[in-house]
């Protein structure tokens, strides 16, 4: 771009010419456009993310609260047949706790007559109330003969009714409660016997057909046991494989082949691993279905390639000068790896492992294939017990017809997201902490 | 690598001062041979001079080694160069002492003639400036060096006096011509010794003050 300017007299004039100025302005405009496009893209992405999270949170927030009814429960000794100085546990367990609840309700509404009406009254309280009382008496038989005030869980329809804002929020055809029930609820509320409390049951109990009693604890324990199995397999195997491939394997066709295969395995759809698990672990080895052992093994197969790849990258990032220094002092190749390479690569390896675990935590398809989809009520105690996992639990609840499970599904998603954020946060914190050291 | 260089410098200075001591010694011996008409003493001087030559060769090698291996700069470089230049002057002083000894031997073989007073004072002055210039080097003392430079004119005058006196003596006593000529030559040699002492003093000032004042007067006049 030649400019007719006397350069000898004023060497800087070339840059001040109008053509140059226009060029400069065009360049600045282009950069501003680019920056704006980037900001818009990020803004849209954040908007989408916020919408997604907001919709889940709005639906799931209410899962953490449950409606409870305060009743005066009279532990009538007459209901506990054979209760003496040391009643057998079976007598305590077999007592008619439903009657206890009914009596307490009737104490509130003594005017209710007729079987139909009484049934409607009884339906206000959850069936789980009986279990609570049973557990309380077994724990402390001295309760028999006393009278206590108890906050008992309300039925899921009552809970939903309350969460939707009462009669005003729901059309008449949509209501599953009769007018009489609604009247009783309002009266209980007026008497201060209705409250919305933190739903510890959601977090501490296992699955149930009754929505108000269903909790995610079983799924959490199941997921935890599964991940323990996965981690205890993936970490040693993955790190050892990465160390071998990076430090000791000769550079030949065979090693190249292994590397290509590992990279491919990392991209295989997870359901394929589920099929593999079904065929090998359940079919060939006959391990118990739906157990965290099998789920853990299957997820380990799935996560192993990722961990090997990230571990290799972390190991390769250790500067060769450190290895040279170690070898120069007379350390054997194994000593160099154990004393120098692994400690320096550990932050990267841990980060990769945690991210792999976070991914495994959220996988559903392979677990469905190996049968962790059954309806499991009991909390699993070992890796051979039948169990379910969090993502599977979400899937099951999403499938459920009862309306109350909608909020539970979203609540469970929030819990799962919370765990994922915590795990990824730990990965980032670990990486920062180790990076500071060197 | 100052330690290695310092070691080399120590060695060079040691050799140079040894050389200086030698030169002073044989100059003194040659003059005593002259005053005391001792031909045997005069003969020893020739042998003593060999040691000076040997030291000069050693200093040459040492200077070469220091320059090649240590590449000194600034004061270190000036010191190394000064050692080389002073060694040259001292070697010449040795030669001059030998020549004085030869004249002394010849004089001893002939009937004595009285020494002019200027000659004894010239001899003392030459020995004095030589000693002082070496002291100035040993202590890197620029002031002492300048004192040496100041004496140069007096030495020149003393030499002139001796020459004049001997020229007159040649007219009066032609039979003692050989002795008289010898004394003239001794005076010339002693004046040369003074010049070499001046050179040494100028080298000391170069080391101490990084100023080259050689031929200063002449250069000033011609510019």
């Amino acid at each position, binding site marked *: 771009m030649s400019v007719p300017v006397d350069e000898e007299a004023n060497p800087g004039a070339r840059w001040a010419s109008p053509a140059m100025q226009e060029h400069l302005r065009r360049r600045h405009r282009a950069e501003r456009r680019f920056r704006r496009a980037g900001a818009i893209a990020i803004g849209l992405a954040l908007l989408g993310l916020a919408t997604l999270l907001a919709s889940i949170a709005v639906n799931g927030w209410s899962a953490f609260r449950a409606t409870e009814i305060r009743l005066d429960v009279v532990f009538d000794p007459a209901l506990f047949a054979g209760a003496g100085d040391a009643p057998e546990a079976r007598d305590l367990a077999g007592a008619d706790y439903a009657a206890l609840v009914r009596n307490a309700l009737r104490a509130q509404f003594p005017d209710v007559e007729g079987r139909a009406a009484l049934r409607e009254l009884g339906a206000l309280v959850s069936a789980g109330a009986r279990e609570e009382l049973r557990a309380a008496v077994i724990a402390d038989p001295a309760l028999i003969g006393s009278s206590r005030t108890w906050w008992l869980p309300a039925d899921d329809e009552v809970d939903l009714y309350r969460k939707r804002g009462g009669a005003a929020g729901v059309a008449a055809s949509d209501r599953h409660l009769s007018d009489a029930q609604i009247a009783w609820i309002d009266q209980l509320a007026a008497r201060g016997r209705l409250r919305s409390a933190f739903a510890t049951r959601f977090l501490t109990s296992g699955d149930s057909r009754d929505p108000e009693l269903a909790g995610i604890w079983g799924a959490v324990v199941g997921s935890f046991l599964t991940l323990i199995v996965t981690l205890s397999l993936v970490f040693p195997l993955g790190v050892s494989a990465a160390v071998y491939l990076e430090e000791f394997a000769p550079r030949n066709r065979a090693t190249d082949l292994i590397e290509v295969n590992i990279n491919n395995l990392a991209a295989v759809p997870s359901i394929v691993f589920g099929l593999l698990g079904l065929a090998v672990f359940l079919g060939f080895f006959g391990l118990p279905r739906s157990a965290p052992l099998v789920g853990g093994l299957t997820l380990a197969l799935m996560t192993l390639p990722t961990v090997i790849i990230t571990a290799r990258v972390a190991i390769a990032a250790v500067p060769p000068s450190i290895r040279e220094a170690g070898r120069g002092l*007379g350390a054997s190749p194994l000593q160099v790896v154990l004393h120098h390479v692994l400690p320096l690569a550990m932050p990267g390896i841990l980060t990769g492992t945690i991210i792999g675990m976070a991914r495994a935590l959220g996988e559903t398809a392979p677990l469905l294939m190996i049968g962790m989809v059954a309806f499991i009520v009991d909390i699993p105690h070992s890796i051979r017990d039948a169990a379910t996992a969090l993502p599977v639990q979400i899937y099951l609840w999403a499938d459920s017809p009862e309306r109350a499970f909608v909020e539970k599904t979203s609540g469970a998603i929030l819990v799962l997201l919370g765990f994922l954020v915590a795990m990824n946060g730990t990965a980032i914190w670990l990486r920062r902490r180790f990076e500071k050291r060197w | 690598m100052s330690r290695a260089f310092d070691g080399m410098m120590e*060695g060079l200075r040691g050799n140079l001062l040894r050389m200086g001591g030698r030169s002073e010694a044989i100059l003194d011996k040659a003059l005593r041979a002259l005053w005391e008409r001792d031909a045997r003493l005069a003969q020893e001087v020739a042998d003593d001079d060999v040691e000076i030559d040997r030291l000069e060769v050693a200093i040459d090698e040492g200077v070469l080694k220091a320059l090649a291996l240590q590449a000194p700069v600034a004061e270190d470089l000036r010191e190394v160069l000064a050692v080389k230049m002073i060694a040259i002057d001292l070697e010449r002083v040795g030669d001059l002492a030998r020549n004085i000894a030869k004249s002394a031997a010849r004089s001893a073989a002939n009937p004595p003639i009285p020494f002019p007073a200027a000659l004894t004072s010239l001899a003392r002055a030459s020995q004095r400036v030589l000693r002082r210039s070496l002291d100035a080097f040993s202590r890197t003392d620029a002031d002492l060096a300048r004192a040496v430079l100041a004496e140069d004119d007096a030495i020149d005058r003393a030499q002139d006096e001796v020459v004049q006196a001997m020229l007159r003596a040649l007219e009066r006593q032609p039979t003692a011509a050989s002795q008289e000529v010898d004394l003239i030559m001794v005076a010339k040699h002693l004046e040369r010794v003074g010049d070499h002492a001046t050179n040494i003093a100028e080298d000391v000032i170069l080391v101490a003050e990084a100023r080259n004042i050689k031929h200063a007067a002449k250069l000033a006049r011609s510019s």
Partner: protein
Amino acid sequence: MAEPRVAREIAGIAPEPARGAAAPGGAAVKMRARGVHVWYGDNHALQDVDLDITRGEVTALIGPSGCGKSTLLRCFNRMNDAIPGCRVTGDLLLDDQPIYGGGIDVEQLRARVGMVFQKPNPFPKAIFDNVAYGPRIHGLARKRSELEEIVERSLTRAGLWDEVKDRLDEPGNALSGGQQQRLCIARAIAVDPEVVLMDEPCSALDPIATARIEELIYELRGRYAIAIVTHNMQQAARVSQRTAFFHLGVLVEQGPTEEIFTNPRVQRTSDYITGRYG
């Protein structure tokens, strides 16, 4: 190619005689190379080299880039083993024992022949652990107190003790470049090697740090046989007693440093030293 050993005692100028030297003509030779060839694949990197590394002396290997001096250095402690496709033939001996060929354990060889690298590479551990690493893995100390002694001795010999004695727990790479290199030297001498190989130890350092390391090398030569590769000729002149000049894989000339730098016999050597090469 036997090089003439010329004993020169120059009155009053000879350096303090090196310990362990039996006589100027027959000093204790620690490592010998005879007829050494090195190939990297098809590249004949080093041809027919004969060289001695002697106790009490610093031997400098000089020459332009790619001339093979580092290659030869790395043969002495078999660091070339790690390079795929590298082939070494000829005789390399430590105390008359061949170092290739299975007679010597490679890891023990590297404890007896230590190395300091071009770029300081302390381990990202505490200063104490850096120096203690070698003695630990070779089992040179039975108790913690012995280890502490070794660490203090090594750091003192490397001229670093006073600067770090109050912060032995701090990481090695928190030190300055010159201090790091002295730490690497301390680390190398902690196992009490017989030979110390230095591959351009000062090229990554500033002039003051370089001067300190040169002083250190000057002091250490009494105790170890030192071989130093350097592309800085003045450094070779200052620091070494013997110099070997390499060019395109050939050992062109070797001899006492003073001779090489005042009167080299081969024209190529003279061209290189005076800077007329290239």
